């Protein structure tokens, strides 16, 4: 029986090498307007792929 299951998440350290293009959506331009939500934004580079 497997007691530990790691959910696949983005490799943050690697994202430092490839990220920072700034093409992603500005957080407040979507639906919140009164609270900062960042984790639910999409990476524009990954979206294109």
């Amino acid at each position, binding site marked *: *029986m497997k*007691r*530990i*299951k*790691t*959910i*696949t*998440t*983005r490799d*943050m*350290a690697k*994202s*430092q090498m*490839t*990220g*920072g293009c*700034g*093409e*992603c*959506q*500005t*957080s*407040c*331009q*979507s*639906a*919140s*307007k*009164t*609270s*900062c*939500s*960042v*984790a*639910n*934004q*999409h*990476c*524009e580079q*990954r*979206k294109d792929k």
Partner: protein
Amino acid sequence: MIHQYKLNDYYIVVDANSASVHSVDEVAYDMIGIIDAAIPSDRDAAEILGRNDIRAEITADLSVKYNVDVSELLDVYDELKALNKEGLLWSVDIYEDQAEDLKLKQSVLKAICLHVAHGCNMDCEYCFAGKGEYSGKSGIMSLEVGKRALDYLVENSGSRRHLEVDFFGGEPLINWDVCKELVRYGRELEKKHDKIFNFTLTTNGVLIDDDVIDFTNREMGNVVLSLDGRRETHDRMRHAKDGSGTYDRIIDNFRALVDSRTEEGAERRSTEYYMRGTYTAYNKDFCSDVLAMADMGFRETSIEPVVSDPDVPYALSSEDLPLLFEEYEKLALEMLEREKKGEGFSFYHYTVDLTGGPCIYKRVSGCGVATEYLAVTPTGDLYPCHQFVGDDEMLAGNIYEGITHPEVVDIFRGKNNLYTRDKCRGCWAKLYCAGGCAANNYHSNGDINKVYKFGCELHKKRIECALMMAVARSEE
């Protein structure tokens, strides 16, 4: 640093510094808790995990407690050790020292919130924009100001291609002709400067007609439609000028717009939209309002806690948190149930993209207020964001002269990031929330770096729910 929580019968462990998520069983959960208590800081984790005496003691104790063979527990222990080595558990924070540099990547403007109308055809009780007029400074944006604002955006966007413009207010549809002209102007600028404009319309829905539906669905990348959920909830706060409720005036308009936007084969730029509500002390059972929107057939939902003075009757307070937490949990569970039945819908804060989400630059830098995002008033004044409009001390400049108050923008540059927030540095949720809303911090505590505690607690709960949903989906 790790965070452990149980939700919906799942045992979940979040590693703060890598944003990793683990779903474990009760025994592993217990073991992780015991090891965590023995680790003074993440830098000591590898050493502690490598000690055979600790390994033997913990596994022997748990073997008795859970009646599990020690050899099996030794394997679990070693698996945790391997996760630590891979940087997925008790990982060391490698970003704090470079946070200022990461933030400085946010150096060019890429989004503006265009306040095309400081005025509104409604009179919502909780409006943070002072009934749409922002401290009495009412006005309608002229086409000339709007065009100059788009020019300003392009001029200051450097090599960024994707630019965003939100038609906001007040109510932008009272200045609809200018919105349409500005979209057309934006399309000209796209060709001329090799840019891509993504326009968003945020509206209360009263003036939606066939022309608005047609143009919006062809041209706007996103539409945010203000609906608070159930009729009684909506009508209690969202009034017409005569004080009457507005639900019946807007609901069919919203339905028509969304139906047309999502219809198969329709000519449109995007199917994206959000039904966006606000909840207050009058509807602490807001889960019912989100479900009411879903029951009406709206598949993209969002609801936010009201931001208000603490002394207004509809204000939410920290005493409400336990009840609000329950509502967020209830919503997450119901969404999972509906997904199983093929009736799923999305809730803005629960659509966390674990694999395709933002890079570390964005997570450390936050929302981009003042650095890559500005609000433009009807007369062309620039503010760090829409929530600062009307705060005289936050006036940053104007679209003709640019930033005339660099000291305002400087507040939000390098020294404003995830690690400059007093409570964020040591928070398990930091890489999921990116430091919260600077405006909420400022308006509640007078300092953009002093965390708005109430909003922070709710956000952590929403992140817990969202991650639990990801875990639940991974089990299917």
